[in-house]
């Protein structure tokens, strides 16, 4: 996760409280999604950004996880997301983020 986005997440957690923040990832790559999820839960694994050594434990989800899908308006989902469901390995992405959340997350929806 680039340094600017790490700072934005950190600022939002400071302002609203980590328990009030949900991070939704749209990464198309499972390995990348895991790194993003780890960054906002256990801290930046590359130790390069503002979240290095900052285990926020945020509630992080992949957009394709059922919990998020249920929150979305069906027509907007159809218009914005449904095409990518056919393109990406949605199960692998959802499982990748879920695994990291269960390991390092302190909060859930």
């Amino acid at each position, binding site marked *: 996760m680039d340094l600017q986005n790490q700072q934005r997440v950190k600022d939002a957690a400071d302002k609203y409280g980590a328990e009030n923040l949900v991070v939704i990832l749209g990464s*198309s*790559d499972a*390995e*990348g999604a895991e*790194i993003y999820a780890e960054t906002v839960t256990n801290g930046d694994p590359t130790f390069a950004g503002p979240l290095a050594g900052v285990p926020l434990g945020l509630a992080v989800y992949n957009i394709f996880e059922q919990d998020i899908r249920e929150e979305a308006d069906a027509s907007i989902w159809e*218009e*914005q*997301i*449904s*095409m*990518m469901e*056919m*393109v990406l390995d949605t199960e692998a992405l959802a499982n990748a983020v879920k695994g990291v959340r269960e390991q390092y997350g302190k909060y859930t929806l």
Partner: protein
Amino acid sequence: MAHVAIRGYSYCLNHTPELGLHYGNTPYMERKSHGETEFIKKLPDHVQSFDEACCYPPNQVYIGGMDLDALVDHPAPMYLNRLKNAPRFGKFGEIMPENEFLGLMDICDVFDLIWLDETFASDVSGALAKHPVMNQKVLSRLEKGHASSEIEEEVSKHGALPLYFQGKIAGCCRKGHDVDESLSAHVLLENIASKAGSVLALLHLLKSTELAPGDVDYVIECSEEAAGDMNQRGGGNFAKAVAEIAGCTSASGYDVRSFCAAPVNAMIAGAAQVASGARPNVVVLAGGAIPKLFMNSRDHVKKGMPALEDCLGNFAILLDPDDGTCPVMRLDALGKHSVGAGSSPQAITSALVLEPLQKLGLTFSDVDKFAAELQIPEITVPAGAGDVPVANFKMIAALAVMKGQLTKEEMPAFVKQKGIPGFAHTQGHIPSGVPFIGHACEAIAEGKYRRVMIIGKGSLFLARLTNLSDGASFIIEPGTGSSRQQGVTREDVREILLEALSELSKGLTG
């Protein structure tokens, strides 16, 4: 006239690993922030030699030395299954070695910014003298060089950046101003390298099309660099600077910018000028981007593979009126990613692929090949970015399913049939559709394809001015000779009048 001929094309690579090791953004920022780290120490061991770069199949496909279809069946990983004794020159251009490229940068420098070591300059002068597209006028611009002590002083005391060949200092790039960051040695180095790449592609284009330099009317440049000073950081203009070195004295030009979507936008801008009759011909060209050299090398080093991002990419394309002998760009069905279109992949694919087809009453199956982002997968997959070309073809296939033109089960076959393998370096603007134009035009001329679509996409949000991205697309088809059908001549009017009078006379007498 809505069709414009693609009269010629050239594609070149500049194998510049030492520019990459020192000034590619990833190693440069690592060194600047953390010093000589393990990554920096290991990176040189992962660099390919010039011969290895020549024998790397995607590089040969880029310069037209290998058929695109042969790449599909080539065993992976391609860096372990290189070609044997592949030549430096292909039918579209060449892979230029770093010493000659540093010489070409000096040739392209008109402000005494590049200084070459005198021994190096003498060696490179001999090499460039044998080069098939260099002429005496171009070669005469190469300096005799400076004593190594002068270069050392310029680097140590005056902020010049050293240039390396085979690990030794071969010259330097000097700064253009004491305090202006837009004229720092670093910025000028990137700009002169981009300019030199464009010049090389233009010289190859002039040779392959047999167009005299003086007959080039207009040049549109579409790289990702910004030329200017502190009062106008992106003032421009690369196009005229390139045309000047290539001896295109009748040409003028300008630059088009839109991140990776710039080449497709520039093609449309050039074609529109030809189609309107405003210009008899336009050359669209771009040089490469030093910052992107070794961009993903951290992952390549980590995974024990060659750091493949060692080449700058360049291209030049000549557009002129459609006389029926060359493939053409269609201007009546352009893809445009409008401000209000939305930024989801679905919205972008609809705007760039579906809408132009609908405009012509065509379906996805009417296009033989789609070419969007054509990065070499062996570069991007280890870095976690996936196979970018395949991702694009899957999106097009998925949209076809949503529109009822394909079943979900047919998607893999569609991707295989309509897609092409990635063969372009991760140079930003370079992979975005345009590298396919050469291969596509050859295949259209042979009757192998009847229609292809070129798609450019750009990440505008990187500049922090907008969250939008950009995109544009166009279709290439066989030529129709539309320019010959343009307008009504005096003879045409005479014939119509005679015909009408004859009809009238028949009516009166009958």
